[in-house]
């Protein structure tokens, strides 16, 4: 029996394959029956040391569908953080008032540290450029739901593969399930060698491309990311690549029937709006799946599922 009670989730690698699958199974239950009053009398701390409306609303929605209460702050300017309180003190204080803490913090590694000092479990809602495991789990949920299984899929990841933390975590997680990886990016934003080493160590294969169209006939999942101008030291370099990785509806013509397009959102221009009506577009359902996954995590960590 897999028991996640009391277990923090900081990095996707904190959970093994069976534990990940257990969360996805519970999430499936919540998709069928979303309103369950099992958090009645429980208080969830929600500490957003940087604003992230999308993630915060998804967590708040998850807690409220389960009948729980939320305390906390949505940005640091309304909290004691601006008065210079240490992260440790904030965590120790809020842990007095809550059963579990959801935390978003701009510092890399802050969630691991919080999990060490906190007497209640920590659910990492993003620690700087490091990890965002609930995003990863909702990606996995979306892949399993649309492909029937997580095993042996061909996933093409497109855009900023160097700085995009969601793609790094997703590679780590999918490595447990025997995926084949297709990395599409400009040379300046290639997948870091540490992530590629991860793939190699799992005895899996990856391929790298500059040309977007090459992966179209192969992919089961097309995972799009945003290329951010501020990542480029040279603005000319950005101008050269910024329009090279835009997905348009016509490009989906000769793709597999089971292909789905995923994106962690928010999108800017990397997927044109004419894709939205294509049945292969899945990014809005993907975001909806985030609520089920967060419900599952909270319920499992509190020992209620």
């Amino acid at each position, binding site marked *: 029996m897999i028991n996640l009670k009391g277990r923090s989730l900081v*990095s996707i690698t904190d959970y093994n394959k069976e534990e990940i699958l257990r969360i996805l199974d519970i999430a499936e239950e919540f998709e069928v029956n979303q309103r369950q009053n099992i958090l009645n009398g429980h208080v969830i701390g929600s500490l957003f040391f940087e604003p992230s409306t999308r993630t915060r609303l998804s967590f708040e929605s998850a807690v409220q569908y389960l009948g729980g209460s939320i305390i906390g702050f949505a940005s640091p300017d309304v909290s004691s953080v601006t008065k210079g309180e240490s992260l440790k003190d904030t965590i120790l204080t809020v842990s007095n008032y809550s059963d579990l803490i959801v935390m978003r913090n*701009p*510092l*890399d*590694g802050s969630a*691991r540290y919080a999990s060490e000092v906190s007497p209640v479990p920590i659910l990492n809602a993003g620690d700087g450029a*490091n990890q965002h495991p609930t995003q990863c789990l909702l990606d996995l949920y979306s892949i399993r739901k649309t492909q029937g299984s997580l095993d042996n899929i061909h996933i093409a990841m497109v855009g900023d593969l160097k700085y995009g933390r969601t793609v790094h975590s997703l590679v780590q997680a999918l490595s447990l399930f025997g995926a084949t990886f297709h990395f599409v990016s400009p040379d300046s934003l290639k997948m870091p060698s540490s992530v590629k080493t991860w793939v190699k160590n799992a005895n899996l294969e990856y391929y790298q491309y500059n040309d977007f169209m090459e992966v179209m006939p192969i992919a089961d999942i097309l995972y799009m990311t945003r290329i951010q101008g501020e990542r480029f030291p040279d603005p000319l370099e950005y101008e050269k690549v910024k329009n090279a990785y835009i997905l348009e509806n016509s490009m989906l013509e000769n793709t597999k029937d089971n292909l789905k397009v995923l994106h962690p959102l928010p999108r800017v221009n990397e997927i044109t709006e004419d894709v939205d009506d294509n049945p292969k577009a899945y990014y809005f359902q993907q975001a909806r799946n985030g609520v089920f996954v967060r419900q599952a995590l909270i319920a499992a960590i509190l020992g209620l599922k």
Partner: protein
Amino acid sequence: MKNKRTELKVSAIRNGTVIDHIPSDVVYQVFGILSLDETSNQVYLGTNLDSKKLGKKGIIKISGKYFKDDEINKVSLVAPNATLIEIKDYEVSRKEKVQLPEIVNKIVKCINPKCVTNNQNVPTSFQVKQDHKGNMKLFCKYCEKTIGKQNIEFI
């Protein structure tokens, strides 16, 4: 003959620890890693000594002190070929190469300016790993960034 020379070199202390075969340019780093600036024991430090293996080498002798393995193993981060020699009553009681530790706590700075260890009062902690080429790397327990040997900076 060889034994006698070794004995002569290290017998300057009666009891204690000798760290030999330190590259001359990292002798002071080893001094710092072992917190020898804080000890009240007698410490002898030599640099630019002739060495067949290293050309020039350094040596540190600490009288009346023995180190725990995880303490002494930190030396290997800067001096992977250093030799640890323990002396008891003028005799060599232990002699071996320093080993890479599994965990490095508190002494190395994380290279990532956005790491929580560089912004809050959090001691650093690294796992020692090797890449596929066999190069030693440090993996930050907190921000999960990897530091190559050439970027190791001591606190």
